[in-house]
Each structure stands twice: as structure tokens, then as C-alpha cells.
């Protein structure tokens, strides 16, 4: 019995120690400009190995150097979980969030228990995914006589809902497909999983097309396995200038993911300013731009005010569309 009590006490001690480690600074006073940051900043992001995590780590390398403190990347199981964790964190700027505009979709369709725009303090956006692209297996395109996007539109007009396209609900690829369908592309949407699974489903002939970021299919295009029919968005994808933009066909809306940072509501203004300035300087550096280009990303800086306005507008736009998989 004595041993049991001792061990239970030991357990409790360990538990509280661990919990203490997890709690934040505890300071409730506003952080002074000259002080921030004094120690390591935790950036909470999506699961390890994901595209979001990848982008986060690319940024935090520079951010740590710029601010002169360690940046600890903490991986939650998804972007929404990461947001929820940050929402409940101390408002001292030592726990912030990094992710993209995908959680806006959950929010826009009323499937979120928090407001992505209003429940957080925006810091700045850092990058933008160049337009999502629609790819088809080359042999399949030849079989159907589809050489370009106009051919695809014509084929779908003649054979409505025959071709299957895969995107993922609740993320920017789902929104991109919505935009194409609202613009008149008559296809059937299916969900076969994440980027890699979508590409392999096209290669295996299980589906006809997939929507991914350009970096994921670039090598397949070069190898002659896939053809890229269109880039979703108003402008031509700078990494694939020979591919037409859906904007040329009247499908002008831009749902490309923007990567940004935010923190819990009520962060001191000077903390936001310090972070915002550091991010502005990073995004102006050539080496950061080059590292983004590897993943077909573009520099996309917006300060905290511009970012908040942009997100509010995107949310409004998303809620006007029927986002695939959510309704």
C-alpha cells in the first residue's frame, strides 16, 4: 500500500512537471518591445512531414536567425488542431501558429468551432502556392483526344460527369475544383486521398484527373507521364508559363493556399510588429524566395492588417461557393 501511494505521488509529480513544461510563460503583462523575444518561440503547425510542416520549417530557419532565438516547431495532428492549441495559449507571442488558408474552408461552411479570422491576431503572410494544376495521364488524354483545356471543356460538355477528378475536401484543391465546376466544367469529383495518392490514382488509371500543386507533378510532366491541362486561378502559373490559367476561360477565382502566421487574440501590438517586421525582411531576401520556388511557392507577404482583410474576403468568397465534400 505504501509503495502504491509513493508511486501514485511520483506519477502525480511527473504529470505536473510535464504539464508545467507545456504551460506557457505565465506572464500576463504585455511584452515590452525591447524584451521580445527573450527566449524560444514555439510555432505550432500541422503534422510532421506534411507540406505545411515543410513550409513552416523553411520559414523558421530564417525566423530564428532573424530574431536571435530558437524557434521550436511543434506538430499538431492537423491545422485546425494547431489553431485550437494556439487559440488557448498565452498571448505573449511565444506560441504562434503557422499554416495555410485551408482551415478557412471549414470555417466558411460552418464546420469549425472557432472563427479563423476573428478569434486570432494576424501576424503576416509569407508565401502563396502558385496555382493548383489539373493533370491527366498522357495516354488517357490521347485516348480521349484531349490536347488542351478547351478540349477538356468540350469533352465534358459532350459527356457530362463522365470524367472523374480527385481533389480533397476542406482544402485548397477542393476549392479549386469547386471554382472549375462553378465555371461550367462538368466532371464528377472523387476523393482518393492526399497529393501522392491522387497522382498514383491517375497513373494507375483509377481516375481521370487530379488537382495538385505544380511541384508535385512537375517531374511526371517532364518524364512524359502526365499532361497539365490548366492552372487554377486568374493568372498563369509562373512555374508553368505554357499552361493556360483557368482565368482565361472565365474561371477567375483564386483559391491558391496562402501561408501565414497568427497568434492568440490579444497579443501585444509591439510583439506583432516585431514578428511582422522580421517576416517582411525574410520575404524580401532572395534566398528565401529561392527556397520557396523549390516547392512551386511564391513570396506572398501581407502585413497583419492586409492579411486580416484578405482572409475575411476569402472566407466570404468561399461561403458563396458550394465547397466540395462539405455540403
Amino acid at each position, binding site marked *: 500500500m505504501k509503495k502504491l501511494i509513493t508511486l501514485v505521488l*511520483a506519477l502525480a509529480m511527473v504529470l505536473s512537471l510535464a504539464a508545467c513544461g507545456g504551460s506557457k510563460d505565465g506572464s500576463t503583462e504585455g511584452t515590452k518591445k525591447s524584451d521580445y523575444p527573450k527566449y524560444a518561440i514555439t510555432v505550432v503547425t500541422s503534422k510532421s*512531414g506534411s507540406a505545411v510542416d*515543410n513550409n513552416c520549417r523553411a520559414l523558421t530557419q530564417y525566423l530564428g536567425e532573424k530574431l536571435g532565438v530558437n524557434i521550436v516547431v511543434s506538430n499538431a495532428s*492537423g491545422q485546425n488542431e494547431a489553431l485550437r492549441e494556439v487559440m488557448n495559449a498565452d498571448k505573449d507571442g511565444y506560441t504562434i501558429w503557422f499554416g495555410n488558408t485551408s482551415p478557412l474552408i471549414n470555417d466558411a461552411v460552418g464546420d469549425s468551432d472557432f472563427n479563423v479570422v476573428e478569434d486570432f491576431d494576424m501576424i503576416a503572410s509569407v508565401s502563396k502556392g502558385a496555382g493548383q494544376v489539373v493533370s491527366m495521364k498522357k495516354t488517357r488524354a490521347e485516348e480521349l483526344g484531349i490536347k488542351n483545356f478547351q478540349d477538356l471543356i468540350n469533352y465534358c460538355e459532350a459527356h457530362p460527369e463522365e470524367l472523374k477528378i480527385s481533389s480533397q475536401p476542406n482544402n485548397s484543391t477542393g476549392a479549386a475544383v469547386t471554382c472549375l465546376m462553378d465555371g461550367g466544367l462538368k466532371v464528377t469529383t*472523387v476523393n*482518393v*486521398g492526399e497529393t501522392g495518392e491522387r*497522382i498514383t490514382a491517375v497513373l494507375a488509371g483509377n481516375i481521370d484527373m487530379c488537382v495538385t500543386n505544380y511541384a508535385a507533378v512537375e517531374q511526371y510532366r517532364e518524364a512524359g507521364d502526365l499532361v497539365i491541362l490548366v492552372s487554377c486561378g486568374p493568372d498563369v502559373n509562373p512555374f508553368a508559363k505554357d499552361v493556360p490559367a483557368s482565368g482565361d476561360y472565365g474561371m477567375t477565382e483564386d483559391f491558391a493556399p496562402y501561408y501565414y502566421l497568427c497568434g492568440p487574440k490579444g497579443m501585444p501590438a509591439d510583439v506583432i510588429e516585431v514578428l511582422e517586421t522580421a517576416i517582411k525582411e525574410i520575404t524580401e531576401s532572395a534566398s528565401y524566395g529561392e527556397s520557396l520556388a523549390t516547392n512551386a511557392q511564391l513570396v506572398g507577404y501581407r502585413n497583419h492588417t492586409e492579411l486580416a482583410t484578405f482572409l475575411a474576403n476569402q472566407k466570404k468568397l468561399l461561403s458563396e461557393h458550394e465547397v466540395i465534400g462539405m455540403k
Partner: protein
Amino acid sequence: MENYLVFLRSIVELLITPRFLLLMAIFVVIGILLGALPGISVNMSLILALPLTYGMDTRTAMVVLLACYNGAQTGGLISAIMLNIPGTSSAMTTTFDGHPMALKGEGGRALGVGILTSVVGGTISFLLLIFLTPVIAKFAINFGPWEYFAIGIFSLTMITAVVGDDMAKGFLAALIGMALAMTGTDSVTNVIRFNFGNHALDGGVTTTALMSGFFAIPELLKLVMKDKDETLEVLKAKKFKGYGISFKEYLSQWKNILRSAFLGAYTGVLPGIGSSAASVLSYSIGKKRNKDGHLWGTGCVSGIIASETANNACIGGALIPMLALGVPGSTSAGILMSSLNLHGITTGPLVFQKEVNLVYMMFAVCFVANFLVLILERLMLNGFIKVLTLPRRIIMVEVMAMCFIGAYSSRSNPTDLIIFVVGGFLGYFLQKAGVKRAPIVLGYILCDIVEKNFRRGMSMTQMNMTPMFTSPIAMAFLLVAAFVMVRTVIQNIKAKKTRKAGEEEPETNI
């Protein structure tokens, strides 16, 4: 041919460059230590090493990460055997035979065999990686949702191998595992489910927290319930030489070794299945196929071989789709891919043309690191054994502290501490009620594969299940699954009747 020369040149370069050799040795040891700590998963080990590689060139970064990966994957067997708590989730099945062996005074031998067979499993998968990557990658493309679903169903029927006499309890245990796996964010639509209104559960019941608790807390409670201060003195009792197994005895297991290595590499190649499922599958199939399978769970070397060969063979398997298709075969491979991206390297079908030197350098690192594991982990064994001769109550306090840290650090979420404790007590009481752990683990691991792929298959075929029956691969797996199921049920009923005549089912650690 030229590519293989690049590989050989890379091996020589690694061996004669002190910087590379030293880094590999250091990170193999770090990996083994992290892997041995319950609660610190292989993925976590890689995440901890990742920031160190930011300032390095790509080749050095790969040396560090792949050495750490190999070390961590093997390190998990140490605590699995000595403490009955797997260091990594893929070493869960190693506890089943490893720990009973330790209790019989054969802990050193179990560890030695585990290390040796891990390296053999790794080597076989790396050979496949070097010679067959393009072929295997093309083969993997043919696996769509229905094929994955059929594999999942086939694997679930393997529960029959580990349920023991009481089939009903076994299947109940599998359902408990599946229920735990379904909690949180639905992986198909991202919608939250079964969180009982508690957003702390939105991220689901995480593997690290649940499995650490599931194995560690029952051990702690068992210790508490005993009057005596128990020490694993048995480890001092029997000495062992080399790796605790003669060459002849090890070779006599060749079927088991090849089957496990193949299963490990195969499950590694298929994205989303992972090394935990590989070792569970290999152990379950081996238990049915091996001559001494009925004794597995009581302390059989062949059980350790099945588990450890498979989980290490997963490393090479998981690298194949990552390199050739740009699709990581596991989370660990995803982290490696992330590191390559950060260094400006994109993987995919052209990586063998564009980055041939780097790719074959990575293969060479896997090979050399694997052999460093063989040497260094063996050298470290005596140290581990000495630690374990300390009073168990002292060790368990440290282990519990590490488990709490590990459970928390996997996603820095206090909910994981609760999952750890609740999972632990659940494990303890289920064990007390005679419910085996293996079916719970199997249900938990396989649920996501089965559910996700069924739903994706239905989405892909517009709610039509016919393609599942017209796919030769899916049908083959489903037919074998049905056959195994029926045969096992009949066998179990017969065995139960026979045992009623007086024979008892052997007590196992499963």
C-alpha cells in the same frame, strides 16, 4: 551498371571520410538511445534530428537522418525485451516473446537475436531498394483504395492468430482498438467525430500516447501489486556470446526471416501502412506458419525474428515510393522527404536521372548505418543490461517519467498525458479480464487503413462495390482472408474441444 558503381563509390567514400563515419556512428547511437526510450517514436527521433541538418549540405543531412532512422528503428527492441514496454510502436510484437525470454534469463540472447535479425531485415530491404526500386514503384502504383482495403481486411483476419482460445473476447478486443482509432478528425473529410463534445479529442487518440500507456502502466501496476522488490536478476544468470544465436540455428529460420523481410518491405512500399502494421502482420502470419507458432508468446526466438526482421525491412520499403514516386511510404519517409525539399531536392520519377549521386549515396548510408547498428548496439548491450540489474521500482519511475515526456512531446498536447494514463489503466484492466493486447493493437492500427480505403473506394466508384470484386489483387486478398477466417474458426473449435480433455492453453505474453 554505372549506378551500382556510384553506390560502391559512395560506400567507399563513407568509410574513408572520417567526418561521415563519425557522424553516422554518433547518430546511430543517438537513434538507438532515443528508440530505446519508451514514448520517443522513430518519427520523434527524426524530428529532433531534423533542425540539426538545416545548416548542413544535402549529403551530410542525409547521413545524419538515415543513421538516426536506422538506429531508432532498432533501438525500440531494447525496452520491449527488458521492460515489456516497446521503445517504438513497431516493437510492440517484440515484447510478446522478448520479455518472456528476459524473465527466463535469456534477455541477452533475445536482444542479440533482435539486433542481428533487425540488421538482416534492413539489409534485405536495402538490396530491394538498390536493385528493384523502379520495378517495385511501378507495381505499387497498381494499388488503389480497393486493394488497400482488401489488404486491411486480410490483415484483420490475422487477429485469429493471436486471440487465443476465446474468439469472442479477441474480436471484442479488436473492436475496442478500432473504436479508439476512429476518435477525432475523420481522415477522409476532416470532420470531427466521436469526441463527445470535447475538443481535446479532435486530434484523435495518438499512437505514441496510447501505446506507451497501454504497455507501461500495466507493468507499473503489476510491480506495485507485488510485495517483493523485484529485480531482473535473471539477466545476470545466463551469459551469452556473440548475438546469442549460432549461425546454423539462425539459418534454420530462413523461411521465417525471408517471409518477415518480404512482408516488412512490402508493407513499407505501400504508403500509409507503416512499420507497426508490418511487425503485427509478420508476427501474426508467422504464428500461423511457423512450426513452433503455437508457442509464440511464451518466449520463442522465432517470434522475435518475425517482429524485428519485418519492422526494419520497412525502412528500405518506405524509401522506395518516396524516391521513385515522390510519395512517402511512412511518416518517417515523409520527414526525410521534407528534409530533401528543404535542401532543394524534389523526389519523383526523374530523381534517378537528376540526383543519381545523392540517391545512391543515400542507399550507401542505409547500408553502412545498418552495419554500424550491428556493431554499436551490440557494444551497448552490456550497458543496458547493467542498468536493468538495478531494482525494477527505480527503473520504472524513470521509465514512467520518460513515457510522460514522450507522450506529451509527440504533439505538445496535455490531452496526450490523459490518453496515456487512461490507456494504461484500460490495458491493465483488460489484461486482468483475460483480454489479449495483440488484437486491440491490431484493430487500432488497421482500422484507419480499412475504413479510409473503403470510403475512398466507394467515392472513386460512385458507391459501386463491383470494382473490388473485379480487381485480381483485391480478390486474391479477400479470398485468402475468408479462407483463413473459416479455417481458424474450425481449428479453434477443435483445439478447444481437445483441451477440454485436460490440456491447458499455454500462458502467453500476447
